[in-house]
């Protein structure tokens, strides 16, 4: 069966937009649900604080919903992006699918992740209503940092949509999908992990409010290190989009970029979540014992560095696949 360029364009638009909105909305919905559930539980314990709780919940859900708004913007662009004659066809369809994969998977992790601090903030406000302003601001800083992976994913999706991919025949389609997959999948774990970290920090701060500045600092460093796998994914997709001008114009080139994307993308999920688990307890610990903060920070950094080594192996394998084998 012969597929015309028109048909390819429609296939790309439908698949890309559904991936972007389906996956991107899924994560944010789970995160918002977690916040809502915790707000309900807190209201059961402290019914008199209902207005404070409602405000915290709505604020947490509103800030935590911004990954799904990134997904919505990219999804609308995928549906309505104008196409000119020279680009339409399979490669155009695969850039749309790649953009959808990037923003969908990338916003999935951050969307779920933003739910953790929102949920902890709700239960913290119920326990310690006088400190609700400080808790809310920690929650928002944590959520903003947990959204970094989804911002990276949005950049790659927009670059895919607006800049030309290297023209290497069938392998161009591979480059477009692979760039999206490597960015999106590698952003999934870091988004979740940063969110888990922010949840731990908000929980620690609600129990020990006096050590707020130290908790926030530990949280920021922990989340920054959690983001590293997503940065590796972004690096690999930039390499694919900007330097592979002389890739093999065959199925070999196609499978090469796909293999590199799977390595760095799937390889980034575990380290992201693992680093998040490390820094979650570290945040709680430095909130409880602020005088031993330097010790906990050092232990956290070593633990995260070891947990992250698998992401570095994945990056090396991806670079070897792209440039050596």
């Amino acid at each position, binding site marked *: 069966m012969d597929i015309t360029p028109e048909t390819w364009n429609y296939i790309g638009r439908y698949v890309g937009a559904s991936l972007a909105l389906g996956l991107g909305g899924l994560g944010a919905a789970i995160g918002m649900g977690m916040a809502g559930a915790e707000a309900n539980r807190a209201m059961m314990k402290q019914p008199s604080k209902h207005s404070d709780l409602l405000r915290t919940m709505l604020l947490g859900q509103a800030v935590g919903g911004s990954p799904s708004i990134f997904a919505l913007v990219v999804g609308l662009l995928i549906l309505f992006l104008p196409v000119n004659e020279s680009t339409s066809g399979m490669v155009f369809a695969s850039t749309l699918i790649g953009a959808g994969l990037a923003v969908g998977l990338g916003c999935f992790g951050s969307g779920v992740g933003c739910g953790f601090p929102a949920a902890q903030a709700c239960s913290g406000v119920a326990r310690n209503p006088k400190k609700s302003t400080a808790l809310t601001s920690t929650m928002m800083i944590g959520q903003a940092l947990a959204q970094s992976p989804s911002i990276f994913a949005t950049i790659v999706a927009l670059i895919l949509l607006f800049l030309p991919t290297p023209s290497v025949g069938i392998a161009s389609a591979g480059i477009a999908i692979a760039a999206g997959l490597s960015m999106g999948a590698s952003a999934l774990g870091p988004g979740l992990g940063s969110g888990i970290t922010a949840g731990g920090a908000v929980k620690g701060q609600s129990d020990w409010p006096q050590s707020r500045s130290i908790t926030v600092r530990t949280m920021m*460093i922990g989340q920054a290190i959690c983001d*590293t796998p997503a940065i590796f994914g972004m690096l690999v997709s930039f390499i694919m989009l900007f330097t592979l001008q002389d890739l093999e114009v065959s199925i070999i080139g196609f499978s090469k970029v796909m293999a590199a994307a799977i390595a760095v993308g799937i390889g980034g999920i575990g380290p992201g979540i693992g680093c998040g688990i490390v820094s979650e307890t570290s945040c709680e610990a430095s909130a409880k014992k602020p005088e031993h*903060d330097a010790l906990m920070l050092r232990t956290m950094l070593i633990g995260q560095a070891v947990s992250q080594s698998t992401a*570095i192996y994945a990056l*090396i394998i991806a670079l070897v696949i792209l440039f050596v084998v």
Partner: protein
Amino acid sequence: MEHIGERLIWNYFPFTNIPIPGGGVNVLTIFNTLVVMALLWGMMWLGVRKLTRVPGRAQVILESFVGLFDGLVTSSLEYPTRDQNRKFLPLIASLFMFVCLGNFIGFLPTHYFEEPTADINCTMSLGMMAIAIAIYCGVKAKGAGEFFGELLGPMWHQEDATGFAKLAGKASALFFFPLNVIGEVAKVISISFRLFGNIIGGAIIIVVVSTLTYNTFLPIGLDLFFVFFVGTVQAFVFTMLTLTYIAVAIK
């Protein structure tokens, strides 16, 4: 939206046809770096022009800023004396001020003001500087032998091991040494791409949403979030990571 990612690059020295070695320079990055430096210099000059015992408004802001970073540096580095800690304060405080104001400058409404931190060359040089300073301080604090000996892995220095176990410990360095070196390089990549990605991401999202909504209300809120909030947070993260890398290297 076709201008996303475009850079103004000079390939020749101005008014001549002598090519610039290395393939050209990003003019706007250099221009904006100079603008940020001039602004910082001007602000500091205004703040410390008339130092008084009862501080004025600008002096209070600057004093509390210096006090905040003094506390951060002291609690992270934990050198025994105050002077040793104080030696790092100018580096850390000026790094924060430069990155923070560099992130804010894209807010000015002409396209000549681009964030210098949205250029990978700028953030990469800041990142390399951070890691180079960390390695220098580590070598100075521990001596070159011990500092680079740590790269050989935890099993290299085993005093009580004998025979085969000792040999295996030495052989494990073949595995650990490349990994540790790659880990150091990965630090440079992650610290510089984190700042770059966040700042250019915010800038691109603002451009795209402004075009989609024909520049009505939404971009103002987006500017407040991406430029001021994310900009400050990322500048602080960059500074704290530099400080933490130095602290890890010297201990």
